[in-house]
């Protein structure tokens, strides 16, 4: 009888985390797949709440966001943990770390805007790892930052359930969301995730009025065929609009994918050409310096309105968010 009672108690103390599509069922004392959401005595706890492991001031172009307050700096924070386990992760040293093995700094949400303002930042970015897993910390910080007039930025893989996603994104101004592939098999085998929730996140974020830029990391042999690149560009254009900025990013051998070479420059140029041919207007190439590949053109007359070298703005001739030559509006948040 006692065993039965104990079993029943243990059963009722299981917690099912409904934050991301993995919906981990977490037993008492155990953690979810993201490493940081833990069942302590029947309560779901985020052990990194208020304890970021990385706090830095970055150029906004590093996120990358090229259509959001260009030339500004963004106060960037991250805790350890991630709900994806991409074999190619370039930040695996922080994203795939257990909290007990890492270091963190106490920084409660109410102090985030104060520190960001002191460092001259116009926005706060939740980045490096995936803010989905430190959802409550990001959400509370977003609210505090908006109260103080600071903008909020997410850099994310977009693997989140719709209800919490809508709550978080209602406090977000801009997001760079990864679209790693158009193949569900790629998401399952390389990232331990699935494609559909990511597509839903992209469309929903855009429909909520968030400025969304998309990043696609091109990995040799895995997702760099002409067909897959064209299919991704078509999906972005058809579902998010031609004005959506798309960043092709260069892969470097990292973590559990050290056997593949870095993405060749010609692949990135080819991807850019395909995207332009598909009708997208703002195409960028990251993790590599290719002259002109970071410039923002006018979507109508193609005059360069923002010239960049890496993360640095060389010239910005936008006038009230419009091309000075033809007056066409350029998609973005410029002030």
């Amino acid at each position, binding site marked *: 009888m006692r065993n039965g009672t104990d079993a029943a108690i243990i059963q009722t103390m299981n917690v099912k985390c409904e934050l991301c599509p993995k919906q981990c069922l977490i037993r008492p004392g155990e953690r979810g797949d993201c490493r940081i959401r833990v069942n302590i005595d029947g309560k779901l*706890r985020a*052990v990194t709440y208020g*304890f970021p492991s*990385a706090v*830095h*001031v970055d150029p906004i172009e590093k996120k990358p966001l090229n259509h959001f307050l260009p030339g500004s700096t963004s106060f960037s924070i991250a805790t350890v943990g991630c709900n994806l386990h991409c074999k190619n992760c370039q930040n695996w040293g922080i994203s795939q770390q257990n909290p007990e093995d890492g270091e*963190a700094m106490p920084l409660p949400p109410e102090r985030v805007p104060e520190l960001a303002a002191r460092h001259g930042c116009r926005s706060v970015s939740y980045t*490096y790892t995936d803010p989905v897993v430190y959802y*409550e910390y990001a959400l509370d910080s977003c609210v505090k930052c908006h109260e103080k007039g600071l903008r909020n930025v997410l850099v994310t893989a977009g693997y989140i359930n719709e209800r919490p996603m809508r709550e978080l994104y209602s406090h977000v101004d801009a997001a760079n969301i990864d679209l790693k592939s158009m193949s569900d098999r790629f998401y399952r085998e390389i990232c331990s995730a699935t494609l559909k929730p990511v597509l839903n996140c992209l469309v929903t974020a855009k429909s909520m009025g968030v400025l969304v830029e998309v990043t696609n990391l091109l990995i040799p042999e895995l997702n760099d065929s002409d067909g897959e690149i064209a299919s991704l560009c078509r999906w972005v254009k058809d579902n998010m609009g031609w004005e959506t900025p798309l960043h092709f990013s260069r892969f470097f051998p990292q973590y559990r994918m050290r056997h593949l070479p870095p993405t060749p420059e010609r692949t990135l140029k080819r991807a850019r050409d395909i995207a332009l041919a598909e009708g997208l207007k703002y195409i960028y190439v990251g993790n590599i310096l290719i002259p002109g590949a970071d410039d923002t053109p006018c979507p109508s007359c193609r005059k360069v309105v923002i010239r960049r070298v890496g993360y640095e703005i060389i010239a910005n001739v936008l006038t009230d968010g419009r091309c000075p030559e033809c007056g066409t509006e350029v998609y973005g948040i410029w002030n």
Partner: protein
Amino acid sequence: MELTRRRFGAVIAASLAALATGAWRLGSLAARACRTAACGAGFPGRLRRLDENEIRRPARWLG
């Protein structure tokens, strides 16, 4: 035993009550088990102070 109209009604009522109790119990279990928002908790790793000089440097992490 003969199944009278009264006994048949009692069986049906008992069955419905049992089903309702089961459904309520399952529902309450599910409600207790599902969470989206997590409470905070102490960080289990090492803690260090915020270093203003380190904050000013761009991160070595991508993004």
